[in-house]
Structures are given as C-alpha cells and as structure tokens.
C-alpha cells in the first residue's frame, strides 16, 4: 500500500504573518487567485497546467467550494477536493494531491490556505457568530452544544490544558522542559525574517513568568493568532523535473481521525498520531534516525512534546528529558520547527498548519537561508486538527 514517491512539492507561496494586518482585507477567492499565482510563479509552472485543487472552507460559499474556486480562477480540473480536518487540513490535502497524481488523475494540484481578513458586508446580518465558541459547534442537535458548551468546555486552550494535565498525572510534569520547546523554536524564529517573533528572544523564565491561561499552560506556550496565507503546488514526476527548485518528494503519509471533544477520547494520551506516523514511516521505507528535521504542528508546547513521543522519536513518557537533552533549534541536534513553529512564526488560521509543510519543503529544497539545516534531505511533518484527535503525518524527501 502507498505512494511511490512520484509526486513532489515544487512551489511555495507564503504571506508574512501579521498580528495587525497592514494590507487591506481580501475576499477568500481573491486570496486563492493571488496565492495560486505566486505558488505557480515560484515553481515556474503556467496556470494552464493546473488540473487539480484542494481547498478548505471559503467565506463566500458554504458549499460547492471547489467549483466556486475553479470558476473564479477560470480553471477546469480533474480533481477537486475539500478537506475539513482543522489544523490537519493542509497536511491531509498534500497526500490527497499526491495520491491523485500517482493515480494518474491529474498532474498539477494547487493547495491553498487563504487566511487573510475578508471585507465585512455593508449590512451585516445579526446573530451570533458561528465561531462564538471557537471550533465547538453550537448548532441545534450538536452534541457539543448540549453537553460541552454549557459547562464552558469550549475553545482550544481548555482542551489542550486537559490533555497536559492528564499527561502530567500519568508521567509527571516538567514545566521547564515544556517551556524550553517554545524557547528553542524562538531561536529559529529569530533567524527567520517573516516570523512574527523575529528578533524577539525569550528565556525559559519568560515563559514560566507569562500569565497562566489554563493550568498548566502559560501564555507563551500558546500560538499567536495572525493574518496570513499559504499555498503550495504539488506536481507529478515530469512536471517536477522541469520546475525551478529541487523537488520535495512526498514519500509517505498516514492519517487517523478520532473524536472531536477530548471528553470522549478512548484514551486521551493515546493520540491519533501513533498509527499515522507508523504508516508514514513504513510507506516511505524510512527510519526515525534518517529524519533530518521535523516540522510538526505546535499550537501549544504540549502538542510538540506528545508529537515527538507519538511519532516515535523517543519512548512515550520520556519526551521531557528528551527535550532537555536536545537542542531543537535549526542549528541543534534535533531540529524541530525550523521556521520558529507557529509558536514563533505566528498562526495565521489554516495557513499556520500550512507553514509546517512550506517549511519542510523549503528545507528539503535547501531554501532555508539563515535557518537552513545543513544537507536536509528528509523532513517529517504533521498536521494536527482539533485536540490531538485528527492527525496527518507526511514524509518529504529530496532526490
């Protein structure tokens, strides 16, 4: 089962994340057009060659998303996909694109995550925003609306804090080790000019002295919401060979989807990443030792810790000493989130998840500039949706 590694990421577009956007709002469709153009330009591929798209939700239409986009872009495609896996969506789109290309359905697939603000309608309709409770659904008949929201069990901080608290009860909790993840990633952000925290170093003490948001998670262990956007082009072998950069071949993937609310997890400490990572490594025929860098979803420090364990880089329960013993920065012995991670780079909506893919590809393409990992050939990437419960693992490699 699996990919042959004959599709590659060949082009990247990434807008600099901004806490307070300095450019005007754009409709999602406009962002799709601009990001697609930039990613194709980067690859050196003409728009007429695009025959597949992968999208997430767009603000202009609740349904018929792909055809709304292809019509706007003037494209006719053989592969039109919408993925709704939260922070795992972008990684999930990458393997779907690669699989479609290897099946011979298409040759050039654009994947975009437009996360720039959209203009507000002149006469906004009243009523509560559908995002009033974060990712929790308040719709009539939604289990969350009835059994979770009334108790305040909403949004992400609270759920990840429950996971971290459970982790601590099982394995012990080392706040300094968790803080070190944010600190090491910040070192990489300091060498990556587009990062929202470029040139803003922090220490373990800074993290531990930042306000407690939801025990045991401090403010500096949580991503900074930003505006931004990202896109990539995935292409088949022949197109990849004539593109501008060293292709980042997609050689393995795994996907696992469990629950939505942590309350209903079968085992809160047995994440969906365990089987997803095993599948990705098996498919690629790679061992953990062969990985040059990891670019893993980091909405919180606990997410990184459990990802390192559950992807098999150290035994479960031993992530805290592992983090203490290794330098996670781009120049360290275990490079992790070399763009700064979303903790250092900023989380621009779903483009935050995309940033782990663009960075993994950038490193394999050897385009990391000041934060390049020397001779990077194999990158391990994750996307994480919901509360560690939607996981996608990817392996990218150079020639």
């Amino acid at each position: 089962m699996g990919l042959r590694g004959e599709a590659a990421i060949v082009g990247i577009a990434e807008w600099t994340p901004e806490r307070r956007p300095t450019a005007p709002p754009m409709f999602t469709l406009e962002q799709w057009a601009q990001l697609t153009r930039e990613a194709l330009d980067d690859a050196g591929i003409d728009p007429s060659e695009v025959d597949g798209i992968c999208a997430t939700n767009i603000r202009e239409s609740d349904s018929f998303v792909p055809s709304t986009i292809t019509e706007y872009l003037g494209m006719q495609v053989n592969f039109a996909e919408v993925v709704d896996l939260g922070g795992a969506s972008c990684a999930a789109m990458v393997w779907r694109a690669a699989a479609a290309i290897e099946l011979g359905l298409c040759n050039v697939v654009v994947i975009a995550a437009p996360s720039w603000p959209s203009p507000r309608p002149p006469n906004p309709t009243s009523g509560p925003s559908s995002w009033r409770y974060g990712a929790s659904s308040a719709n009539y008949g939604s289990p969350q609306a009835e059994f979770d929201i009334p108790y305040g069990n909403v949004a992400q901080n609270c759920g990840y804090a429950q996971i971290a608290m459970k982790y601590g009860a099982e394995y012990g909790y080392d706040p300094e080790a968790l803080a070190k993840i944010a600190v090491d990633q910040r070192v990489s952000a300091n060498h990556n000019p587009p990062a929202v925290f470029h040139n803003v170093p922090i220490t373990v003490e800074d993290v531990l002295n930042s306000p407690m948001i939801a025990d045991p998670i401090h403010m500096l262990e949580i991503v900074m919401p930003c505006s931004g956007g990202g896109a990539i082009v995935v292409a088949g072998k022949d197109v990849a060979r004539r593109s501008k950069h060293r292709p980042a071949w997609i050689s393995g993937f795994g996907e696992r989807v469990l629950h939505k609310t942590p309350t209903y997890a079968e085992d809160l400490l047995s994440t969906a990443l365990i089987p997803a990572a095993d599948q990705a490594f098996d498919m690629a025929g790679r061992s953990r030792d062969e990985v040059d860098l990891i670019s893993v979803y980091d909405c919180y420090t606990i997410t990184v810790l459990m990802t390192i364990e559950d992807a098999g880089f150290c035994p479960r329960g031993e992530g805290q000493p592992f983090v203490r013993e290794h330098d996670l920065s781009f120049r360290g012995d275990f490079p992790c989130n070399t763009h700064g991670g979303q903790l250092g780079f900023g989380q621009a909506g779903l483009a935050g998840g995309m940033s782990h893919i663009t960075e993994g590809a950038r490193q394999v393409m050897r385009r990391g500039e000041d934060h390049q990992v020397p001779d990077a050939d194999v990158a391990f990437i994750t996307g994480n949706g919901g509360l560690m419960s939607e996981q996608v693992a990817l392996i990218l490699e150079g020639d």
Partner: protein
Amino acid sequence: MAADTPQRPLPTPIDRTQPFWDGLRERKVRIQYSPSSDTWVFYPRSHAPLTLADDLEWRDISGEGTLYTYTIARRPTAPDFAGDEPQIIAVVELDEGPRLTSTLVNVDQDKISVGMRVRPVFEDIPGSETTLLRYEPAS
C-alpha cells in the same frame, strides 16, 4: 441578573436526549445502556457507538465517578463565561465507564487531583427548565 451579565449558553435538549435532562431535574443521573454489548453510553445517541446496536435503554446510575482530567481556566473560555473565571472544567469518568464534561464546585483549587473521587451536584438554572450536572469531591 444584571444587564451587563453575559448570557450563559444553555442546552437545547432534543427528543432523543430529553430523558437525561428530565433525570437531572429529578436529581437522578440517567444514561443509556446497550444490552447487546453490555456497554454504557454517554452522551445519548440513537445507536450504540462501535456496534451501532439500536437497543439503547435508559437506566439510572449513581452518577459517581473519578476525575479523569481537568483544567483551571484563568481567562474565560468564551466571552459568555466572563466573570466565571477561574472555571474549573472537569472530565468525569463515571463508574460505569463513560466520561462526561462538567465543572467542579465546592472544592479548594489546591486540593484537586486527577483520579480523585467525585459526586454529582444538581444545579437548577434560575429562569430556565435546565438543571446542569456539576461535581464536587466525594469526601
């Protein structure tokens, strides 16, 4: 309620789940049981998870359990909960197996620990038909 107090979101029961909420009003914890697989189910569903058996029946239980995990939210988890912080949000594992979301009341923040025994507290919400199921330390 003061005019500037945010409106707390309350559940809107559906026909399928009404017996659970009626139970709370009667100071009982009533959840579903699937005889074919000998499993207890929460939250209420049309079919038993995994087996998809349609034999779910309602049974009253003690409601007691252990604290599976929790957090103390120092900032409101949503604007509607402004003023409620710190919110002690709990996941309770019922003795029958299923877990549910609740909040801890009547508890000293320093004396909360994962695995502690907890028991139900029924809170009637003024001006509504709703009773919420909160939890307190069992001893």
